């Protein structure tokens, strides 16, 4: 063995020629210098290391961080309930399903420890052997092939530190891991770890992952399912079974192999586990079914609630009590679904739209949505944002701005009635020119006459334009805003025919006002919000505070009768029998890209829309009456089971008369019309009818014998 001591004989022999004292003295001096240098180096290094570690905070770790870790709140999902207290959905920043350590299945713990930290129960936060092993493997292979982080380190990395890769972070990770294990029991660390790590598909923790991938609690998973979940900790996105099933299977086998190596399972069990097929759920949304749109809507509504100050609503475990009626919601969904095949057929008549994914053009998809409200309370009772939430999460009831077409006309006629016009007033149907705006109908419509009532229930455009010019655009748009249209209304006469886009909630407010006898009740999807412990943090205003009268009850009643006539004699005649207790109006925009039926009973407002998101035209005479009305009809008939039909309230000051639908005079065989008292037509014959019945075809035929 070579003596490397600087004071050994070989070195001393080199000084033999000099006097021995001098040699000795030189040696000693050299030794001192060397020692001094070495001491300086060591001290300097030590000081530098201390200084470095001190600068990192290793020596003054904030124990509040440890408290944060131990007090980790897993139950921060906000839950949404229907009007009867049944949970209909939840929302969150991170999807958690808390599982206490005691509920973690053994096979899962075995799998996790086998693949992630075999010496978990042996080390004190840092597996130095593991580090050495990893370094060795790295040295041999030239690249990192095995991680050496313990579960504790991973937990620290994911909760207290940032995921950056640096020496500083690694040192802190080790320090925190060692510190954490001084204060937190192993089982608790395991519990925090298994409940907090992101495992893909929006799931945080194994409880959430078991729900997302297998639709069951972690306690109910099989060993092979547990092995798959355990495999996700390394890289949830890379091994996501919903996206990469083959990779996930490979990873699962790695976990099973590791379990076998650690001896927690036998080779036979490993073989069986490897062979067992996995039935995991494909990716799905957190909230499913038709209520999902409503839950989304609730999320969007919370920040806008007046007086509600909680900002981070996704992490505060709110309990949100809504007005949704699950029975009506299901009925609304069925009412659309029952027409699925018809709506699919409609797609054959849809125009082409650009295909943003594949290029070129494609047929647009037919969508349908429905909003149901209670006109007296403003409660949103049902909200169907589209035909299939899984395919499209876009909520068409609130977020789609669409042209209402003739569904806007009730506002125009209500304003006319308010200004003294009456249903029997005669209009000469001809094209209209308003500041060079010249909408044209089919020419067959012209050269005719009609009462205002008939023009309304037959949804005639030219008479409506004429009325609009007479009553004034500003008064119409003003009333529309008063009645609840919050979307912007264009300052042009086309708005009278529904050219300004609105939302379904806009229309629900307008028709709700008619249904409630002229009182607008603000739509209100939430009745109360509490914290998880039941403390009320928000409650909606009283009904009186939410209501505003915008039409007098008589005008509102006249409009309701006009909209009953839509069903008995107009564009909604296919549902004529419903007029006994319902009223409504069709709407069809240009090229039938929007097809509406907005209707109501005394207790329910239901707005139905059918169209395409791309505003594609629908050919073949699609109208609100032909494609939206059947859905509305289905719903209103079904709703009788939940809201028994009753007649509309008739205020004082209303008279009825049978009136000629075209010429506006009273006649026993005419159409039933309603008027303000003393405003009904007095004439029993009109000159127009006299002319029509004349044998000469003329009027005042004294010269025509």
């Amino acid at each position: 063995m070579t003596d490397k001591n600087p004071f050994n004989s070989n070195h001393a022999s080199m000084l033999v020629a000099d006097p021995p004292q001098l040699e000795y003295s030189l040696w000693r001096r050299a030794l001192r210098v060397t020692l001094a240098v070495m001491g300086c180096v060591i001290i300097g290094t030590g000081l530098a290391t201390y200084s470095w570690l001190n600068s990192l905070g290793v020596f003054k770790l904030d124990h509040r961080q440890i408290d944060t870790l131990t007090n980790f709140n897993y139950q921060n999902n906000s839950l949404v309930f229907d009007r009867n207290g049944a949970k209909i959905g939840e929302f969150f920043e991170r999807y958690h399903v808390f599982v206490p350590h005691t509920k973690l299945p053994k096979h899962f713990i075995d799998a996790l420890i086998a693949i992630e930290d075999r010496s978990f129960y042996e080390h004190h936060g840092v597996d130095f052997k593991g580090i050495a092993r990893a370094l060795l493997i790295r040295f041999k292979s030239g690249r990192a092939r095995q991680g050496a982080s313990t579960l504790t380190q991973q937990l620290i990395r994911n909760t207290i530190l940032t995921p950056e890769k640096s020496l500083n972070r690694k040192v802190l990770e080790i320090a925190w891991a060692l510190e954490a294990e001084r204060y937190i029991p192993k089982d608790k660390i395991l519990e925090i770890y298994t409940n907090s790590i992101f495992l893909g598909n929006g799931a945080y923790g194994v409880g959430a992952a078991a729900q997302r991938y297998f639709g069951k609690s972690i306690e109910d998973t099989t060993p092979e399912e547990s092995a798959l979940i355990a495999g996700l900790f390394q890289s949830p996105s890379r091994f996501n079974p919903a996206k990469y099933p083959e990779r996930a299977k490979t990873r699962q086998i790695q976990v099973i192999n590791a379990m076998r190596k650690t001896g927690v399972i036998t080779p036979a069990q490993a073989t069986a586990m490897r062979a067992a097929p996995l039935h995991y759920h494909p990716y799905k949304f957190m909230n499913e079914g038709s209520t999902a749109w409503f839950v989304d809507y609730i999320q969007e509504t919370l920040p806008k609630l007046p007086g509600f100050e909680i900002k981070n609503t996704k992490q505060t475990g709110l309990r949100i009590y809504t007005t949704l009626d699950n029975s009506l919601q299901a009925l609304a969904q069925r009412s659309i679904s029952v027409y699925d095949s018809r709506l699919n057929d409609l797609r054959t008549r849809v125009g082409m739209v650009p295909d943003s994914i594949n290029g070129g053009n494609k047929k647009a998809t037919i969508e349908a949505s429905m909003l149901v409200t209670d006109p007296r309370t403003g409660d949103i009772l049902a909200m169907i944002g589209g035909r299939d939430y899984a395919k499209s999460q876009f909520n068409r009831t609130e977020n789609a701005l669409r042209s209402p077409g003739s569904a806007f006309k009730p506002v125009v006629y209500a304003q006319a009635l308010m200004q003294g016009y009456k249903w029997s007033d005669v209009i000469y149907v001809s094209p209209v020119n308003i500041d060079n705006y010249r909408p044209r109908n089919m020419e067959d419509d012209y050269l005719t006459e009609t009462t205002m009532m008939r023009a309304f229930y037959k949804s005639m455009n030219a008479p409506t334009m004429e009325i609009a010019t007479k009553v004034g655009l500003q008064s119409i748009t003003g009333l529309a805003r008063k009645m609840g249209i919050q979307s912007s209304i264009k300052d042009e006469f086309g708005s009278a025919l529904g050219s300004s886009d609105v939302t379904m909630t806009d229309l629900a407010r307008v028709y709700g006002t008619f249904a409630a006898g002229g009182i607008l009740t603000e739509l209100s999807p939430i009745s109360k919000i509490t914290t998880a412990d039941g403390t009320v943090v928000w409650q909606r205003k009283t009904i009186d505070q939410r209501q505003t009268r915008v039409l007098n009850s008589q005008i509102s009643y006249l409009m309701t009768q006009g909209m009953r006539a839509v069903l008995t004699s107009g564009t909604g005649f296919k549902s004529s029998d419903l007029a006994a207790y319902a009223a409504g109006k069709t709407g069809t925009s240009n090229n039938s890209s929007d097809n509406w039926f907005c209707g109501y009973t005394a207790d329910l407002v239901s707005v139905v829309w059918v169209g395409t998101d791309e505003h594609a035209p629908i050919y073949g005479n699609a109208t609100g009456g032909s494609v939206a009305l059947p859905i509305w009809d289905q719903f209103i008939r079904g709703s009788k089971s939940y809201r028994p039909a009753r007649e509309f309230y008739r205020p004082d000051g209303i008279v009825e008369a049978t009136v000629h639908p075209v010429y506006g005079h009273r006649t026993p065989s005419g159409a039933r019309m309603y008027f303000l008292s003393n405003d009904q037509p007095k004439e029993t014959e009109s000159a127009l009818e006299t002319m029509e019945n004349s044998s000469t075809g003329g009027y005042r035929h004294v010269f025509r014998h």
Partner: protein
Amino acid sequence: MFSVTKIKVIILTQALLSTCLGAGALEATTTPAKLPEPAKVATVAQKQPEEPAKTPLAPQKTPAHAENTKPSNDAAAEQTCSKLFQKFTLPLQDLWKRRGPDLRPENTDGYALIEEITSEQCKDAETRKAHIELLARILNSHSGKIGVILPITGNTYSKHMIAAFEAYVRSSNLDPKKILVVIDSQSKDEHVYQALASLIFEHRVTAIVGGTEASEATILRAWAAKVMVPTFLMSEPPATAPIAFVYYAHPTEKSLAKAAADANVRFGHKRVSILSPSDQHSDQFIFAFEEAAKINGITITDKVPYDSRRFDSMESAARKIFHLDASERRDELKKLYESAKKQAAKSGERFNPKMVALQPDIQQDAVLIPDNFKMVRHFAKIFGYLGVRRMPLFGHYEWRSQGLISPWDSFMNGSYFVDFQGAYTSLPDPIKISTPDSPYLAAADKIEQADFSLIAWRAIEWPLKLSQKKSDMRRKMDKLIPKKPENRTDVSFDANNTINWAPSVFTVTGNGSNTGHINLLGQ
């Protein structure tokens, strides 16, 4: 039934016939034959209508004188008789043959004998005398009754007219039941003949009122002079020369058109376009207006027909009068189109070709639309649609309706129309109708009543006057009706035997409410 023997007896008792008819007794050329004036006979006939056949004609010349001049007079008398036979007897025989089954000879006071007379009887002095005597009785005598022939079945206006006739008679303190003989023509020619036969042979009326329908008016017009009965027709006169005994007691489109032209002059409208209904019902009015316009120095800029059953036809007519499709404006349209396209591109808006339209080229001061108010309302809309902001429209009686002004269309402001009815409040009390909203507007179900009542009221005035002139021979009554100039408010007839009926002009205005106003323009 009278027998030939009986006739001969009568003929013998009237032997002086030939002396009654001198050569000058007949002056019938274009005017009715001038019959002898058997005042005595007429008087007797009126006093003793029950036995007219027994009343001899009063001789104008002595038999002796007759004897002396027999050869020359006889020939002349025979010639006269033949002429009378041709002119009156044959038509009367024809009429007798057309009588209805209810008209029996015994109810004709001997008039039925006319059917027995032949031209041969003119050769014999005695039979000739009897012949002439009978003719004289038929054509001269009258009962003071007024015959009314109306198509009661199937028409509603007739009842209004009859009511007005009765009201007028009552207002003269007479009994309508004794004065009026009303017969339903059922709008059939054969019934008109039967009615005429009945009125002549049975009721021996003083005058006849009727002819509301064109076919009836034609028949009555043709027979009035033949039976020498003043006949008052309640329809538009034809554009032919007037005929004796035939009077038109009906407002005329000519007078209305003249009033319309006068109104244009008054409003300073020198250039007028005409929209002409293709069903031709207003052709007469338009023709008359064109004549009147020419006289008044008004230029007709366009005359465009339209089919009132088709919107495209009406729009096309309107486009024509405002030169919106004129080939010479093609370049103008092209420039407008390009300019609008550029403007849209500049503002980033979608170009809408429907917003590009030529502005109307207005070359007229007013537009005549002689159609009903409904068409006028539609034309007003079309004009507005084409970009015409203001254009006085004018028309006639067919405009007058609540429908013209309600609901109000401001385009109608400043328009006007002519009518034969003035204010409804000016109607005579017995035929007055209620006018709850305006003195110029009536309820739709009262308008026909008002129109036909007024026509009837005015048409019966002269027949009733004549019926009271019992001492006058009927064949002379034509001369009792004076001819007076136009534009009189009283009931009179002009040189063409057409009633003088002053039209009224109404203006149309609005005041911002949902109903406009119709006002009578001061004369």
